[in-house]
């Protein structure tokens, strides 16, 4: 795509362009898809892709085998990922050295390389094809799937896989009302946290008085555990642009913003590039595809505070003001950005829109549960074998996500809880693992869909410490405007400090409950209102752990340093001296060969180094 693209001036020209592209491309042509998402870039990314290109040239296959640099495939933990198409051989942990062999053995020889294949955790069997890898098998990658097939840098790639066909369908034959109606029938709910029906916002903004109307895409993604918005923006920016175009058409807006956090340089870069390409193609600008519809999309870089993702704070930030929330008793769909009607949706919400228009509300609404339709992308992290981004149909159970897609808990540890929804989500215990995951079920369990982060915890996580950790994060991120959040969270954290450091009192639990309730009811914005969730859910589901800290001054998970001591199990210790050498504080004394060592509590800082190195499991926490 070196020569400048002529502007497309009609829907027919766009379709002709697509046909032209597809004539040149065949779906069973050999392709090496190299993941260059932020995760895989750490292992070489583009460098490995270049090595593939060189190798291909060396074998005289230039022009016959395509090397595609793609966005994130989701299974970041196994990076760098390479998929050889059309067979879809899935190679993980690929390094530069593997390149020549992959080309000669697989691309030319057609045979998979055992060493690079995924190995089943249960059976040890090697799995060759992408679709059969358990991590992917239960996923339904409607929104995220194209990431593995297209180069986010090439608009032609997106067009070739059907991109912008929903937009052309809308422009050539749907009224704004029909578009909103389709979104309503599909049951699309916001993926950025609250699960608010998208069509209601759109309709309300469409009907509101005031010009211009604004469309905003929220790519702030302040939750440190979530990265699906980043991966979508990096890997398939045109899908998001297309969703926004359709939304703008439906609402009657001609100015749109993408609010991206500054810490996402690749996402910013790809979004800029995608917008430029769409302009060059005449998909943005004036009189788009000859329809009379105009749209401009601008990028705004967020400053990084978590609270800037909140709708009113985000709008203040775009206006150049301090990013602080304000009361929104008049909906932003009526008075939002610059006091004008504004529709704000999350990245993933926008990316769902083309799908709905293309395949229809009937098709879309068959996926998911009664009140939560479609799929949701989660970032699965924590004490779990397979970490990464997973896209699953709404209604899948937590158990399926944790044990089938996630491959269960590493080591022979026991599952304890999964926290959903980001720092202010709730912790869901084992007996609720069969909970179908959707907006309402998670809320009923005291948690939320939130950002879509899922953090898995095992028996070695102390739930009181976890609650304290999240509260501290939110205390740091509180903007400080309103009293319940600014003062209340700090005081709750102080109480949790007391409990985890052995100063807990019986009355603390009631106090925490009382404060949770008040902050939930009284805080100004969603940050404060939801901040008590981790405390409330752990109090509800793991009360015994709190009691152990308070009454017995013990931390059952062995985490809270003030409440634990390390001990040598004499029957198991052979005096091998490993721990003696590992202890930087000289707390363990060597008593002679085949004699158990002695641990001096007064010297011990409870760093845990001894337990780490002991091969005989002769050190325990009490």
């Amino acid at each position, binding site marked *: 795509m070196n020569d400048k693209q002529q502007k497309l001036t009609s829907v027919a020209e766009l379709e002709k362009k697509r046909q032209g592209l597809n004539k040149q491309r065949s779906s069973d042509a050999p392709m090496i898809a190299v993941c260059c998402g932020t995760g895989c870039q750490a292992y070489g990314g583009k460098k490995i892709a270049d090595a593939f290109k060189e190798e291909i040239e060396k074998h005289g296959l230039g022009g016959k085998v395509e090397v595609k640099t793609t966005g994130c495939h989701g299974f970041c933990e196994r990076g760098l990922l390479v998929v050889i198409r059309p067979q879809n051989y899935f190679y993980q942990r690929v390094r530069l050295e593997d390149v020549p062999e992959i080309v000669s053995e697989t691309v030319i020889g057609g045979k998979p390389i055992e060493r690079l294949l995924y190995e089943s955790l249960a059976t040890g069997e090697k799995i060759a094809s992408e679709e059969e890898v358990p991590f992917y098998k239960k996923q339904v990658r409607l929104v995220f799937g194209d990431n593995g097939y297209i180069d986010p840098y090439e608009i032609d790639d997106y067009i070739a896989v059907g991109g912008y066909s929903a937009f052309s369908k809308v422009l050539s034959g749907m009224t704004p009302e029909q578009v909103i109606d389709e979104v309503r029938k599909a049951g699309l709910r916001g993926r950025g946290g609250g699960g608010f029906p998208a069509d209601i916002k759109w309709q309300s903004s469409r009907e509101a008085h005031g010009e211009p109307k604004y469309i905003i895409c929220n790519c702030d993604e302040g939750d440190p555990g979530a990265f699906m918005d980043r991966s979508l923006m990096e890997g398939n920016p045109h899908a998001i642009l297309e969703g926004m175009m359709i939304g703008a058409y439906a609402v009657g807006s001609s100015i749109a913003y993408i609010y991206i956090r500054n810490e996402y340089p690749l996402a910013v870069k790809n979004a800029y590039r995608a917008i430029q390409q769409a302009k060059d193609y005449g998909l943005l600008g004036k009189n788009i595809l000859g329809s009379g519809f105009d749209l401009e999309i601008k990028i705004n870089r967020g400053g990084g*505070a978590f609270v800037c993702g909140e709708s009113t704070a985000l709008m203040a930030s775009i206006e150049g003001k*301090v990013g602080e929330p*304000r*009361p929104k*008793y*008049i909906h932003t769909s009526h008075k939002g950005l610059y006091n004008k009607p504004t529709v704000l949706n999350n990245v993933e919400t926008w990316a769902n829109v083309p799908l709905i228009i293309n395949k229809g509300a009937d098709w879309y609404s068959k996926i998911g549960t009664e009140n939560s339709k479609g799929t949701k992308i989660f970032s699965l992290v924590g004490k779990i074998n397979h970490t990464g981004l997973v896209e699953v149909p709404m209604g899948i159970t937590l158990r399926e996500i944790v044990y089938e897609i996630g491959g269960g808990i590493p080591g022979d540890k026991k599952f304890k809880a999964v926290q959903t929804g980001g720092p202010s989500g709730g912790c869901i215990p084992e007996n609720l693992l069969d909970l179908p995951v959707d907006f309402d079920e998670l809320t009923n369990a005291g948690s939320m869909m939130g950002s879509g982060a899922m953090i898995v915890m095992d028996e070695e996580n102390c739930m009181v410490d976890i609650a304290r950790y999240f509260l501290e994060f939110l*205390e*740091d*991120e*509180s*903007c*400080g*405007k*309103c*009293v*319940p959040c*600014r*003062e*209340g969270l*700090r*005081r709750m954290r*102080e109480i949790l400090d007391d409990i985890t450091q052995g100063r807990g009192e019986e009355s603390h639990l009631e*106090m925490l409950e*009382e*404060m949770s*309730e*008040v902050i939930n*009811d*009284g*805080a*100004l914005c969603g940050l404060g209102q939801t901040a008590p969730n981790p405390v409330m859910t752990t109090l509800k589901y793991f009360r015994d752990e709190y009691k152990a800290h308070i009454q017995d001054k013990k931390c059952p998970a062995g985490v809270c340093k003030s409440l634990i001591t390390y001990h040598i199990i004499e029957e198991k210790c052979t005096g091998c001296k490993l721990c003696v050498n590992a202890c930087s504080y000289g707390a363990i004394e060597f008593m002679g060969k085949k004699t158990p060592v002695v641990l001096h509590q007064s010297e011990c800082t409870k760093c845990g180094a001894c337990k780490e190195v002991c091969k005989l499991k002769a050190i325990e926490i009490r």
Partner: protein
Amino acid sequence: MVTFKIDGKEIKAKEGQTVLDAATENNIEIPTLCVNESVLPYGACRLCMVDVTKGKRKRTVTSCAYEVAEGIEVDTKSEKVIKIRRMVIELLLARCPESEEIRQMAEKLGVTTTRFKPDEDGDACILCALCTRACREVVGKSAISLINRGTEREAALPFYDEADDCIACGSCVYICPTGAIKMEDKAGTRTISWPNCSQEFKLKACSACGFYFAPEKQLEFMAAESGVELEKLEICMSCRP
């Protein structure tokens, strides 16, 4: 005009009026700490929260920002809002243990002690932002602003010592509900002390009687804003013809 119910009583109010203002006009008292008629509603202290039922939906909102609407039912004394007010004031009592104003408000709300460990910094600022809002919205300056986030937040001059934009008018001092900002005029100098910074300003002596009556910078600002010659403003109120 719109008609709605507040604590069971039917009242009328002007469209666009806040629930708080309508309540006040009808002698229904709602406690507040961050409201002042000269600046826009802000919604930070949360003392003024009330329950509002609109159709089937019941919400707890800040009455200082929520506008009246036809047919709504307002409860200014529900169990929930009383709980919020008491917790808020208990938290502020711990933040500003020495503030007489906070202690009085707490008493009014039936709170006499706090279960939290009182702060020891002697800072009476509750971060209601009345000072920074008055500076911006009333004076038209941004001499002081809220800096830092969360528990670190404070009202201060830029970098704690850049008073270029400050005209020493003292509006922030007058509007502060807890006396956290102090001002003293002595020997031709005005000293304003905000919680974490302080600055001295020259006062102007009246060209007639010689009394130091106003900050020089304020007079210069007034001259520039009004177009009146500076000399004409350099006469104190009592000496003005």
